């Protein structure tokens, strides 16, 4: 009996495959426009679009279809409309160049919009000169892979986000490039999703931005020369692993901005040459470990009600200021890090300094009160100031102290994404993919 069921199922499946048609779209094909092919196609069909420039305004995909561009066909919106709208489940969209989306103040037009759909796959597309690049709205269980979204955000006001997610669940955003938009990748009300291996450059505001999103991870991404690197705001249980935050300079620029973040994990990241490596405000129960803080203005600024954070096994190398803490929180821990300006000794050779280290200099406190005083940074006066405070701390918080400062740097074995040791977010395994 069971065999019969199996055989008939297989036959049915075979029939479904036979029934699925393929269409070709080119100037001389029976279907000369993408729209026409979509109109003729039935669910589960595949449409191959040959190379060429197609100016068809908005293209609505409202059936389960696979659309594949052969030789990078161009869908040109001529600056008038949104271009591709995916409004059906199980749509596979691959290999197109999408350009010239019109800017509008009343609607957030996108190069590719996925609208209330599930099980979508958008792959290897290039979106140029778009207001919003790829916009996912109220969608779930999808993959955005290998796309390039390149804008020319000259004027920050008239630019949307490169990859924008709004009310989504369980989405994988992997190996994309986002350049020259407002935010490279933006997630608002997005849960159980992963952002991995992406590259964000020259975006006006942030390379990556989380708002009101929980149980997400981002790892192995590079954020370079954006207005600021990454902002994680009003979110819970976000895992941040093995990312690079580089070269974010400016008065409002951070490598990483944390605002009202609870139970996060920040591990194996590199913060290099930023005005501020990490700025944290009202962020609790975060573990900072195995991170590299190299040549930043401030490696880490902690302010306003941050509690129960644990900073351990990090390297602080050549920062102007390692730490600035302005928080009443008393139960933050700073033990077991390497500080390049630690001046203690290790008589028992156990690798741990015998004298506690106070990573917050008095001058760091002075500068936070009077920013203009920064011009005195390398002066003898400031050295004396810092030294006297070190000897008898009065102004700097008493509990900002590393009782076990390391004599050697923490092994800085580079994290890679496909490395087995790269940590997996504890909650990601509970989600059904």
């Amino acid at each position, binding site marked *: 009996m069971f065999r019969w069921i199996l055989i008939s199922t297989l036959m049915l499946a075979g029939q479904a495959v036979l029934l699925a048609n393929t269409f070709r779209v080119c100037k001389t094909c029976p279907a000369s426009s993408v729209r026409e092919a979509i109109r003729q196609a039935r669910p589960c069909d595949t449409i191959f679009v040959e190379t060429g420039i197609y100016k068809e305004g908005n293209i609505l995909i409202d059936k389960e279809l696979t659309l594949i561009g052969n030789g990078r066909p161009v869908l040109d919106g001529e600056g008038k409309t949104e271009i591709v709208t995916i409004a059906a489940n199980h749509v596979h969209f691959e290999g197109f160049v999408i350009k010239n989306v019109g800017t509008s103040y009343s609607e957030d037009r996108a190069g590719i919009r996925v609208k209330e759909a599930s099980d979508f796959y958008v792959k290897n597309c290039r979106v140029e000169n778009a207001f919003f690049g790829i916009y996912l709205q109220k969608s779930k269980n999808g993959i955005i892979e290998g796309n390039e979204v390149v804008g020319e955000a000259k004027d920050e006001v008239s630019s949307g986000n490169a990859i924008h997610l709004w009310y989504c669940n369980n989405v994988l955003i992997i190996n994309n490039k986002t350049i020259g938009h407002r935010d490279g990748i933006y997630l608002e009300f997005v849960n159980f999703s992963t952002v991995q291996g992406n590259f964000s450059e020259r975006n006006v*505001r942030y390379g990556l931005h989380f708002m009101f999103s929980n149980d997400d991870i981002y790892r192995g991404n590079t954020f370079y020369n954006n207005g*600021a690197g990454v*902002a994680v705001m009003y979110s819970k249980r976000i895992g941040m692993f093995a990312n690079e935050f580089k070269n974010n300079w400016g008065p*409002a620029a951070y490598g990483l901005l944390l605002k009202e973040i609870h139970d996060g994990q920040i591990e194996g990241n590199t913060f290099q040459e930023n005005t501020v490596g990490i700025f944290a405000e009202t962020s609790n129960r975060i573990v900072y470990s195995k991170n590299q803080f190299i040549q930043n203005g401030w490696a880490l600024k902690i302010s306003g009600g941050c509690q129960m954070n644990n900073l351990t096994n990090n390297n602080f190398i050549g920062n102007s200021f390692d730490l600035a803490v302005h928080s009443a929180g008393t139960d933050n821990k700073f033990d077991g890090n390497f500080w390049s300006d630690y001046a203690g000794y290790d008589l028992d050779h156990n690798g741990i300094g015998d004298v506690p280290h106070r990573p917050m200099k008095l001058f760091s406190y002075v500068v936070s009160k009077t920013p203009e005083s920064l011009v005195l940074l390398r002066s003898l006066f400031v050295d004396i100031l810092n030294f006297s405070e070190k000897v008898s701390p009065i102004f700097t918080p008493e509990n900002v102290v590393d009782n076990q400062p390391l004599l050697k740097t923490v092994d800085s074995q580079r994290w890679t994404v496909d490395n087995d040791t790269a940590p997996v977010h504890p909650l990601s395994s509970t989600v059904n993919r």
Partner: protein
Amino acid sequence: MPHHMKKLAILLLFGSILTACTPTAEPVAFGEDMCAHCKMTIVDEPFAAEAVSQKGKVYKFDAIECMVEFLKIKQSDQMALTLVRDYENPKEWQDATQCNYLISKDLPSPMGAGLSAWLSKENAEAMKAEKGGEVYDWEGLKQQFN
């Protein structure tokens, strides 16, 4: 220097000091200025807001919801000006107390409240008919955030 010239100079000096303290609105440097409440960079024109204290201190915000939250905390600081932008004409400041406010989940604002300001109550109602939500005046809006 003649006596009256001296007087004039002193007057001018005081005048300039006084004007320095008069609360005046400042333009927002989009893409550079930081929100006084949430620390985000301000980029979205229609949603930018600003409050100026009696002493002339300027607070800028990336979203109206940030200003409302901020005013709640900073109640001690009397504000001389509270400014928002009309959703339909986002280049200019408007008196926040004279505007109407639409809270609609389907008209996203930078801080997730779906809050936009409208000079014309009629047009706010029209947008509400399209997107759903609720329209408030300034006092009603503040109630919503209490």
